[in-house]
């Protein structure tokens, strides 16, 4: 059981947890939280691979993680803004009730 695989397993677990949250919760905000968790799990993977990868000096994985953190911040801002405006229009954030886009 090499340390890298430990990190990868933890990341996988966190990812699965986030996915479960995103799939099972009703509240849109909590779905967003789950998605954030998934993103972070991915970041953990990136950094772990960078750390144990063949060429850490290249900084590739680290950079990727840093950028994805920045992008995730933007994503959170927009997502929550959307949730708020949805709430303003529909008076709810319950995803089971929000199905206007029905085909």
């Amino acid at each position: 059981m090499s340390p890298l695989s430990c990190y990868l397993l933890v990341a996988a677990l966190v990812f699965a947890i986030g996915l479960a949250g995103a799939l099972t919760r009703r509240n849109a905000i909590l779905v967003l939280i789950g998605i954030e968790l998934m993103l972070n799990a991915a970041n953990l993977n990136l950094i772990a691979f960078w750390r144990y990868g063949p060429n850490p000096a290249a900084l590739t994985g680290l950079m990727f993680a840093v950028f994805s953190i920045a992008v995730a911040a933007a994503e959170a801002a927009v997502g929550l803004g959307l949730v708020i405006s949805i709430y303003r229009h529909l008076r709810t954030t319950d995803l089971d009730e929000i199905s206007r886009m029905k085909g």
Partner: protein
Amino acid sequence: MQGTNGFALQTAASGITQLLWLIPAIPMVAAGVIALLKQPARKLAATLAIGSLALSLLLALVAFSHVLSGWTSGHNVRETANFTWLQFGTSTVDLGWVLDPLSAVMLVMVTFVGLLIVIYSTGYMAHDENFTRFFCFLSLFAGAMLGVVIANSLLLLFMCWELVGLTSYLLIGFWYQKPSAAAAAKKAFLTTRVGDIFFLLGIVWLFAQTGTLLFYNSGAGSMEPAALNGLLAAPAALGLSAATVIGLLIFAGAAGKSGQLPLHVWLPDAMEGPTPVSALIHAATMVAAGVYLIARVYPLMQAGTPAGGITTALTVVTWVGAATAVFAALIAVAQDDIKRILAYSTVSQLGYMMAGLGLGGVAVGMFHLITHAFFKALLFMGAGSVIHGVHEEQDVRKMGGLRKAMPLTFATYAIGMLALSGFPIVFSGFWSKDGILAAAKDAHFSRGPFYLLVFGAVLTAFYMTRQVSYVFFGKWRGHGHAHESPAVMTAPLAILAFFAIALGVIGTPAWPWFRSFLEGHAAAIEFGKFGESEFLVLLLTSTLIVLVGLGFGWLLYGSKSPAPEERDVLEKAVPPVWAALRNRLYVDEFYGVTFIAFYKWWAEVADWLDRRVWGGIVALVIWVFGRLAHFDRFFDNEWVNGGFDKGCEELYSGGGLLARVQSGRTQTYLRLLAVAVVVLAVILIWSSRP
């Protein structure tokens, strides 16, 4: 004249040559700007048009002086500025412009006359509500023509050529609310198109043969010995060399534009346009374009001249020209519309130019072109002034005695008329026509053209006299009363009148300045020539001709004033001939019964095919399918429908099932996504395992 041999080629482009493109560009830009103006901005539009043309004139003069200085200092200028426009594969299409005596002279003439005409039309069109549009077209027209003049590449020339065609269409149909104007515009456009098709064929062939469309390119151009010899060597159909055939094709285009015999029909109808337009088309720009084209490609036309004779191409040119000259002159005799008379005279004069080109070389034809440009512009603007003065009346029989009403117009018009009919010594027309006749006289292959041209000259003098005496002599037969035109219209007349006289000086046999300038050898003054016998003979002959024409005309029409409804003198004399001439020798009708009728017949055939044959087939098919459909319906009702309805229900429920997937629930989508990820990952790992 031996093509380019007379020239010490000098292709190092000087500054003015580099800037030559500005001359057409300025009016075109002005046109573009004017097009953007609003209707009320009349002053600005006029200023722009005049200013741009004045600028072009300035540049043209600079260019001319450059050429002139080069000539006087002994070496002859032919400067080209070429550039590659397109490149496909190994072959390139080059464009460029050339500055040599020919183009220089044309530039000055076109810009000058054009400028005068534009100034004139500010007065003539003053009351038209589409003032700005008119000036936009006018500038564009001038620009296009200048482009034709400077072009050093057959392709560039063709572009501007087509532009000229387009603008002529726009201008002739300027009063498109008049159906006749619209029709005339269409006619002009289509007729010239016929010629242009051949022209284009010639261009393509030339390119295929020589690989270049440049005229002069320091030895590599298509008008230069190397290419020409190649063309001569290349055989074409029925024993003609490629050079000849290409020359003829190009001539067809020229004939279209300059209204030569088979294609002249559009020119008289073009009178439907505003008079300044007629002046511009007939004097300076459009019709001149054809003649200029022939002059431009002259080396090609006369390539491989047999000893002491002329080439096939030039022979054709000559005969067509001469025929046109007489033909049009005949028709002109029997016209009543003041502008139509002038139109037909233009056609005939163009015939002269062509004949001159064919027989006497560039110099002769071009000289007549220049002089004619001036006095024909003069005549047209005079006619315009008359029409303006008598309240848009165009029938000469409804005029008369105007010499008192509008003296200035009368004076200038008389000068123009005398110049046109070639009154001896003082008028430029005399010398230019004289040159042509001289060339025709010692044409070796046949005397025919000479006699034709002489006859045409007589007729010219005759119908001009008729017209003038109808318009200016006798007593006033119109209604209302005539008034002199404003100064803005008469001033250009005066200027043109001056040139109509003065231009003769540079073309006398004694001092053939123009010829030597064009052909590029020093001009010598030798009054001795006046003494030489054959010159004197010719002089006397043409004088005689003119006097006969004038006298006959005066005899029949002078100062007597028949009432409009009264029949014409000639009509009384020889009714059938008169009728024929009156109806323009039935050319239009001829076309009507031949080409147009053919097309009509063909259309009917096609129509019949459509109705009967194809229609029948279609009907048959329809019937068959109808039967099939009946059978099918039976079949359906009995067997299919049951099953089909079932299937529909199935599909419907299936759709409902699918629709449930599209539930609008984000989580559902997310779930599907995750499932897909799982499946893909499994596939990936499975496939990648050893």
